[in-house]
């Protein structure tokens, strides 16, 4: 393991997104200064369904379990989450 391998964030997916991507989390490398938008771009580069979901403006974002935006800054080991509009209650 080199230093670079630590510069990642964990990205979690929930509900419909988790099912469509067929995964509940991936590690995404970041180079600081980084924002959620950078992570979305990296994921979109995987193409097909990834590109589609990353372009969906209804997708909600959380960073370290608090609501966030595409402009929210990220540091290594942050937990990012993408999920559809919530439907509890």
């Amino acid at each position, binding site marked *: 393991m080199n230093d670079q391998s630590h510069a990642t964030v964990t990205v979690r997916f929930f509900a419909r997104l988790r099912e469509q991507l067929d995964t509940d989390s991936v590690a995404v490398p970041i180079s600081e200064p980084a924002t959620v938008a950078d992570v979305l771009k990296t994921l979109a580069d995987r193409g097909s369904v990834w590109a589609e979901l990353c372009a969906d403006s209804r997708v909600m974002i959380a960073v370290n379990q608090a*609501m966030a935006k595409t402009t929210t800054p990220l540091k290594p080991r942050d937990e990012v989450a993408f999920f559809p509009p919530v439907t509890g*209650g």
Partner: protein
Amino acid sequence: MVIIQAADFDLAEEYQKLRNSGNGTGAIATFTGLVRDHGDLDDVTGLFLEHYPGMTEQVIEGLITEAGKRWDVRAARVIHRIGSLALGDQIVFVGVCSAHRGDAFAACQFIMDALKTSAPFWKKELSRSGDHWVEQKDSDRTQSEQWHKRQE
């Protein structure tokens, strides 16, 4: 107090806890949500509730804190169930104990409305013709935005 659980809950128990912690205050408002017997699909047989463990609790604790800044809140309890639910099952409970009737109602309704649009839960409707993620309703978004307008 926020509890996320698969098990059912007992309104009487929750009410008693609110009553005990409010000691001497006059007003308790509660809301209980039940799984409807009809949904987006006609042949719905039940629901599956997914959530984001950890974040869910934080978001709802935050709503209780916000309610406490806006109204007199002596005690508040929220229970939300996850996992498989049958039609007619209890799904969510919000209870608020306050010194004032209006505050109890407002805080209870605020927490419930805001939970609908900000707490990370997702409902999947299970039906004989296949499963189906529920889409967020515009009315829920509107109802939650009302509270921000009222604050301005």
